[in-house]
């Protein structure tokens, strides 16, 4: 039936694959110098976290008695601390520490937070109400205060810090996800899915989740940077990861007494923390920008 209404055919390219989409997003991300720098430095740290042990000339706890307290030199790029440990190696090896702590912490928080946020936003009702009131009360405690309370309870250890990061960030992630779900939930295509009898699970994970991902990616990057911040602050306060771990905050704390003797043992890890946090922040900023641009297209 040749109708009056034939397709308003457009000359648009065929659907790009996910790979293509990824590359186009990545290109947008790398367009601004600050975003590109943040991304590259973050990636560099990630690489160091993975292959750090291969790069480090010494072990994290290897003591070179003769070189103790030596300043930066060809043999010890970042100098040696009072215990005779090579600061460069410790900073490199500490990268893995911070990535596992902050990274896994963030990942878990994001996973759990996302599930709760999805469920709570989609289901609504008493479940939502209850969860949100609970999260409100958790969020009524400033993050560090909650972290300190929990660490007081759990005792300082790597696992505790991990746990604290997860607990502190779940509510935040869940709320971000929930707010996206709430706005997406009323979209016609979700209602269409409902009147087509799609299962809740499919609606949540196939229809809603993709819409949440951009916000989630930005949030995850932000959380990650805060988690680094938090973990190192706890290390610095002495209630986080315990010696002799080469965790950066702890290194700063340990080097503080000897700052006039071995300032390098303080400044290099401090610089590492700052650099990483700033880069991840820039990355988050970049992601936000990318998804904004993507949304506007």
């Amino acid at each position: 039936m040749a109708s009056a209404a034939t397709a308003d055919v457009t000359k648009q390219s065929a659907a790009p694959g996910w790979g293509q989409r990824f590359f186009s997003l990545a290109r947008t991300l790398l367009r601004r110098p600050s975003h590109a720098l943040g991304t590259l430095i973050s990636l560099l740290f990630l690489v160091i976290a993975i292959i750090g042990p291969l790069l480090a000339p010494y072990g994290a706890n290897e003591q070179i008695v003769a070189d103790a307290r030596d300043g930066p030199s060809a043999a010890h790029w970042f100098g040696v601390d009072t215990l005779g440990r090579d600061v460069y190696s410790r900073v490199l090896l500490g990268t893995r520490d911070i990535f596992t702590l902050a990274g896994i912490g963030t990942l878990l928080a994001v996973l759990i937070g996302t599930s709760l946020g999805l469920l709570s936003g989609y289901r609504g009702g008493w479940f939502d109400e209850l969860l949100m009131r609970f999260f409100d009360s958790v969020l009524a405690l400033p993050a560090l205060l909650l972290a300190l309370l929990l660490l007081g309870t759990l005792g300082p250890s790597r696992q505790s810090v991990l746990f604290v990061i997860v607990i502190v960030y779940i509510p935040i992630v869940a709320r971000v996800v929930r707010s996206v779900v709430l706005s997406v939930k009323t979209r016609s295509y979700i209602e269409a899915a409902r009147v087509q009898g799609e299962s809740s699970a499919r609606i949540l994970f196939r229809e809603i989740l993709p819409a949440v991902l951009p916000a989630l990616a930005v949030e995850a990057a932000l959380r990650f940077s805060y988690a680094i911040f938090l973990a190192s602050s706890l290390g610095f306060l002495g209630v986080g990861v315990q010696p002799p771990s080469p965790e950066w905050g702890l290194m700063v704390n340990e080097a503080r007494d000897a700052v006039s003797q071995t300032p390098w043992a303080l400044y290099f890890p401090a610089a590492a923390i700052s650099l990483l946090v700033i880069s991840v922040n820039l990355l988050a900023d970049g992601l936000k920008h990318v998804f904004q641009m993507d949304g506007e297209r």
Partner: protein
Amino acid sequence: MTAYILRRLAFLGLTMLLTSLLIFVITQLLPGDVCRVILGREVGENALEACRLDLGLDQPAPVRYFTWLGDFLTGNWGNSYSTDAEIRPLVMERLGNSLMLAGFTMLVGVPIAIGLGVIAALNEGKAIDNGISLGALAVVGLPEFVTGILLIEILAFRLGLPANSSIRETATFAEAFPSLILPALTATFVLLAYVARLTRAGVIEELKQAYVRTAELKGLPRRTVIWRHVLRNAMLPTITVVAISFGWLISGLVVIENVFNYPGLGRLMVFAISRRDLPLLQAISLITVLGFALANLVADLLYAALNPRIRIGS
């Protein structure tokens, strides 16, 4: 508006109740025998037993919670386990100190931050904006303890500013002032970047609104458009930002107070945790949370009061 205030208050009450429960549960799980901590390692079992009885630790947890909450609400905060001092005056004094530091920081930092944010927003994409935004982002990445230590190393001894901010209890503001400078500066860094960034975003968002076009096409001078129309609306979200940053400040102060040995609530809190001083810890937590919540409430109410859409409802 009254209904709104009442609703907010009820909400606050509920949140505080839940939070207090949370604090109670967490602190009850703290390891270590409280009485051991109080009496030291050198006492016998019978003394411990007497102490436990004395503290009511033999009661079931719900009873203890409600007793504690009731006592707290009636102003009976008890004595610190570790110092045996009365908690209320102690916490109040430290709260005063923390508020002085926070207030000073906000007083100095917030106007500057808002100014920077506005300037950046009005010059979006230009060099000034890039400078401010990047600077803010960089500062956001510096943990307080790094900033604090850097300031001590760079400024304290050079300028003769006190690195240690242990102020006298009786000190007037003028006397305390020098010791406030470095911690406040450290806190300002955190605040500055945070508030400036959000203010910038707020103003940029406002600048996109259609009413700006209306105002401009009326023929209003640019200055009037910015001051009378844009900022008026952009300041609304900024109020919330400032309140949230107050919460940030509370967290930041824990670290800062410990770096500078400033006798505030944050330092007292780390002390209480390290000493397993439950009543002190609970009181500090609750006061902090209350302060945090009140700041949010004030921000909400202020927001509502200044925002006709909420004040008057449609």
